[in-house]
């Protein structure tokens, strides 16, 4: 089978890729490296559709600095090593902007590899535009000049959630459940310290880590929470681990708020369905029921119509438009200059002004806490359910201090 049409055409494509580089200088290539197959393929697939839509919009409006944008997708199978192979492929195809989001392990591998590549290959620098990997280390301990993050990281989102908690006077106890790996641990640590800081009267009655993707029935966990009389549950879980947790909670009649980062994650609303109503809260930069201009709503509708997929990653549009703005300002694909332009840039999104903090290349954007509800104006995934905003957290309030000591190329 491999000797079929694929063998020939890919061979040709690869042989061409080197020589065509210069001829295609009129096109700006954004390399999208995320899983497109395997268990996480669905998430990566949704991401690339957002990127392509944003690119089409920019192209329709004249492109970046007069050049057309093209999004090339590379399947990394959410594997760090495979990501590095795909990175090399992307760079050889003339890609200078890498977008990635799924998996902090991949993001860590990429940021490391890109920094090394830029050091070893001056004049051929590459930028890493991270749209979803939320490990705080990426803009703290491991920050580097070539990495820009457009999603709020764990600590920022946790700051938002605990801000909400500050006003919930009847909550006296909290339970933390997260997956046992770096993100889950970062989640737990942040939850503990911020609850402690903002509501010292709340007792943390449980903080638990479970192996990722291995638990089939969360009922025992839920019953532990109920035995401990938890008034609120903080969970870092995402994907199946979250939907299973929510279903178990609903089945056992555990009706306290479940504070999540990824309650609205693609596929989750369908899987949770009725069981999550009134239970699940999420903190995001976007959900469909946030008030916005008609133009934005038209964009959301059009996106959903053309892609048969929910509009989810507002930050992808932010990312692409900020890149557009930076390239426009520089007037060429001079990567170090584009990076310098992005540093400290402010940009007006449909949901408020955002800033790329120069200290650590972390985007500051308004965040929204919302509850999974019935009777919403716009539902998600045709479930009839959707998110309702509880509170809005202004961009400034999400700022957390950074330990990043940015080393800028001279």
């Amino acid at each position, binding site marked *: 089978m491999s000797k079929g049409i694929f063998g020939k055409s890919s061979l040709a494509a690869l042989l061409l890729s080197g020589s065509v580089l210069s001829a295609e200088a009129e096109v700006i290539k954004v390399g999208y490296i995320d899983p497109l197959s395997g*268990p996480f*393929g*669905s998430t990566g*697939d949704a991401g690339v559709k957002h990127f392509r839509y944003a690119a089409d919009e920019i192209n329709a409006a004249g492109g970046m600095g007069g050049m057309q944008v093209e999004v090339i997708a590379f399947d990394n199978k959410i594997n760090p090593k495979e990501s590095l192979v795909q990175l090399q492929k992307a760079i050889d195809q003339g890609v200078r902007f890498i977008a990635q989001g799924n998996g902090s392990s991949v993001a860590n591998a990429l940021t490391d590899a890109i920094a090394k590549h830029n050091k070893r290959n001056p004049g051929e620098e590459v930028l890493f535009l991270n749209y979803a990997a939320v490990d705080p280390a990426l803009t703290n301990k491991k920050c580097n000049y070539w990495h820009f993050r457009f999603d709020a990281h764990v600590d920022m989102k946790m700051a938002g959630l605990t801000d909400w908690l500050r006003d919930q006077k009847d909550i006296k106890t909290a339970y933390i459940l997260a997956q*046992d790996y770096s993100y889950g641990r970062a989640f737990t640590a942040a939850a503990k310290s911020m609850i402690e800081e903002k509501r010292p009267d709340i007792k943390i009655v*449980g903080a*638990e*880590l*479970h*192996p990722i*993707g*291995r*638990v*089939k*029935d969360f*009922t*025992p*966990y*839920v*019953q*532990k929470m*109920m*035995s401990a009389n938890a008034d609120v549950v903080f969970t870092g879980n995402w994907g*199946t681990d979250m*939907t*299973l947790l929510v*279903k178990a909670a609903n*089945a*056992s*009649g*555990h009706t306290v708020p479940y504070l999540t980062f990824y309650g609205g994650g*693609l*596929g*989750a609303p*369908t*899987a949770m*369905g*009725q069981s999550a109503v009134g239970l699940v809260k999420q903190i995001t930069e976007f959900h469909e029921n946030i008030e916005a201009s008609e133009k934005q709503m038209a964009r959301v509708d059009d996106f959903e119509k053309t892609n048969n997929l929910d509009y989810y990653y507002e930050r992808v549009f932010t990312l692409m438009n900020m890149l557009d703005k930076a390239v426009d300002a520089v007037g060429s694909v001079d990567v170090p200059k584009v990076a310098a332009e992005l540093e400290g840039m402010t940009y007006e999104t449909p949901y408020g002004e955002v800033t790329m903090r120069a200290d650590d290349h972390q985007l500051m954007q308004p965040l929204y806490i919302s509850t999974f509800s019935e009777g919403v104006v716009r539902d998600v*995934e045709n*479930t009839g359910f959707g998110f309702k905003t509880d509170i809005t957290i202004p961009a400034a309030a999400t700022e957390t201090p950074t330990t990043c000591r940015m080393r800028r190329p001279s």
Partner: protein
Amino acid sequence: METVVFALLNGLIYGLLLFMLSSGLTLIFSMMGVLNMAHASFYMLGAYFAFTLGQHTGFWFALFLAPICVGAAGACVEKWGLRKVHARGHVAELLFTFGLAYVIEELVKIVWGKFAVAYEIPPELNYSLFELFGSQYPAYRIFMLAVSIAMLAGLWYLLKRTRIGLIIQASLTHPHMVSHLGHNVPRIFMLVFAAGCALAGLAGVIGGNYLVTEPSMAFSIGPIVFVVVVVGGMGSLEGAFIASLLIGFLQTFAISIDSSFAEIFSFAGLSADGDIGRITIASLAPMLPFLLLVLMLMLRPRGLMGEREF
């Protein structure tokens, strides 16, 4: 007290679900010697079939139709696939089913999409049956309990009281004898494979909405099913039953134990900051079946109730 009751109840449900899956696998293994690596894929097919059929016929018809469809799929796989590699030995068969698991997952993605589908508990059963220590006990779980016990009874009847059951039983203890009986062995193989798959499909129908119906559901539950079958003793239905419950209870009990290694081994001076001291029993719970598997194979390779070492 509270913890124990809950752990028992939850362990029972989970254990019975595991038994539904592993009984089919055990049947297939004991008759055909095939360790079906794609068994959990048929479980997944059961859930998806029930989802699709349920949209047209409602849950109750799907409960019967979906396992039949899965059984038919299993029969096709046996007839046009497995039978061809049979002559080349068990490793080839094992590899065939290993490849099949890949293919089924990808096909499911194409047919039903990559995200989870909204396969939900039927409204008739979606209420809480009673309250226990302040926690609700959903009716659907009792339904699951009833279905699995009905299945257990049906299986028992089939094996002990029918002709085909006697043949199957004979093959459980004397695997080489069946071919001498003059029965149509390929046909029996096909039927047994289909029946085993149908059992997995039934587990999928009632497990798919209790858990989540998504393309990776097979991959995530598959290894546990092997653990059950191996720990119980290859080819022993009783063993599979005991092992299913054992693993169900073991996992749910472990989750309720919060002590960390640092606390347990504090006499040995283990620090709570280290990697090992940090680990709690609860966080190890999902790994316990695999530990059990490795220990069992090393210490008592024929499993709890098995009569032969593979």
